[in-house]
């Protein structure tokens, strides 16, 4: 029982990190109808940025630097690789996203080699905690709390700020949104900025419990978070949140009962089942193609 509950805590924690990344997929999909294949790699690069900055600065400086740098990276990728293809067929921009993904992986390999680099220990997050007879650490407790807090802030932004209003309008109808005076390109940049900030936070929480980063550490989590977003209904933020927690939890429990080998396959089995039963995911809106 104790083991089971501890595993649940771990699962919820991983799930929180997944949820943060899944939201990035869902936001970008909502606004560009694009699966941003590079998103998982942005998460990986955030890991390296953290390694690099902690080598030179104390933690309380390197965390904000990591978040800001990742945010800039996301926005620049959009401007360079996706914006020029705004009117091109959707397939071209998808291919561009795959290209960016490989570029980031190769670039990381070039700079840091393919060997895992040690992730800096954030002692505060590593602190052991005892809740009753359960042993856990600060990161596992904080991850779901931070995740839910960030999601609440995000929902507040979407509902009550002009940027949020413009993001919702652009997701729905480019032309009508621009007739309101909204600059579509700026709104898209805000979306990538928010998605990348969440990925950076997710990256810090995730790698703290993994201790190393290598150039491909983004691809599997990236895929899983994409699945989480589809599971919840791509385009839906509550969907991505629940999808992230669900996949994190299931995967950990499967590992816990000794089927580690199958935990990744399981993620994709879920995707297939969900797509068969509910093609639009748990909270998915009916897919309305853009005019």
């Amino acid at each position, binding site marked *: 029982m104790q083991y089971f509950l501890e595993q649940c805590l771990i699962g919820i924690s991983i799930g929180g990190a997944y949820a943060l990344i899944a939201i990035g997929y869902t936001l970008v999909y909502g606004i560009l109808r694009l699966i941003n294949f590079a998103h998982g790699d942005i998460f990986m690069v955030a890991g390296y940025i953290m390694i690099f900055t902690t080598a030179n600065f104390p933690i309380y400086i390197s965390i904000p630097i990591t978040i800001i740098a990742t945010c800039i990276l996301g926005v620049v990728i959009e401007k360079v690789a996706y914006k020029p293809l705004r009117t091109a067929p959707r397939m071209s921009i998808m291919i561009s996203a795959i290209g960016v993904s490989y570029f980031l992986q190769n670039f990381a390999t070039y700079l840091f080699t393919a060997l895992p680099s040690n992730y800096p220990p954030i002692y505060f997050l590593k602190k052991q905690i005892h809740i009753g007879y359960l042993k856990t650490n600060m990161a596992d407790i904080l991850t779901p709390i931070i995740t839910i807090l960030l999601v609440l802030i995000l929902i507040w932004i979407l509902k009550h700020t002009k940027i949020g*209003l*413009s993001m919702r*309008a652009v997701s*729905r109808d480019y032309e*009508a949104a621009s007739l*309101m005076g*909204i*600059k579509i390109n700026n709104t898209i940049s805000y979306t990538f900025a928010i998605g990348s900030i969440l990925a950076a936070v997710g990256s810090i929480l995730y790698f703290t419990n993994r201790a190393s980063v290598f150039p491909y550490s983004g691809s599997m989590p990236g895929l899983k978070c994409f699945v989480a977003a589809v599971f919840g209904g791509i385009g839906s933020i509550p969907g991505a949140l629940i999808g992230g927690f669900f996949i994190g939890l299931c995967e950990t429990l499967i590992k816990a009962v000794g089927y580690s080998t199958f935990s990744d396959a399981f993620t994709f089995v879920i995707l297939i089942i969900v797509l068969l039963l509910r093609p639009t995911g748990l909270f998915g809106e009916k897919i309305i193609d853009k005019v």
Partner: protein
Amino acid sequence: MLKVKNLHVNFGGIKAVKGISFTVDKGSIVSLIGANGAGKSTTLRTIAGIIKASKGDIEFEGNSILNNDTSKIVKSGITLCPEGRRVFPDMSVIDNLKIGAYLRKDSITDDINKIYEMFPILKHRSWQLAGTLSGGEQQMLAVARSLMAKPKLMMLDEPSLGLAPLVVNNIFDIIKEINQTGVTILLVEQNANKALKIANKAYVIETGEIVMEGTGKELLNNEKVKSAYLGKTK
């Protein structure tokens, strides 16, 4: 106030607008009428900066606004209430109104109250999602949303499209009312009869060119207009 000079617009090889020129005087109602595919929407969308012109010029209050981006054009005081309403269906009525005022920095509470006076139906539906409104209510919302930007010139693209006769009258009354508050109106309509009746000046567009112009009255009594657009025979 608005001067369109020899405007040309192409879509790939298709010439949709072929040298249109017209003027809209401050405080007036100007109607553009014409058959399907004549290039009316294209003209309005080009003025709004959604589509780029290939030739010609558009002047607003003495400055060229040709090929400015839409945001800048809205800021200068021109709004377009698009064909097919295009309200944001998954936003509440009040959010639709707020987004109409996107570029404004001043307080909009007074204006929302004014809008609710003008469109009582919207007040009752303030928190309802726009997608669940009836067609007529959505059209009211679209007009109200355009008004929230405090335009000097309001362009309306077929506001009576698909509405019951009673609602159509209602819309035209509202357009007149808006005009009386000092907003200049550029109206595109299939409902030529009504559009000509409220117009100070009107233009007939055929396949991307202006083929006739005159006051609303003149065109209402013109034999060609009568047979082609008003469904009346001699």
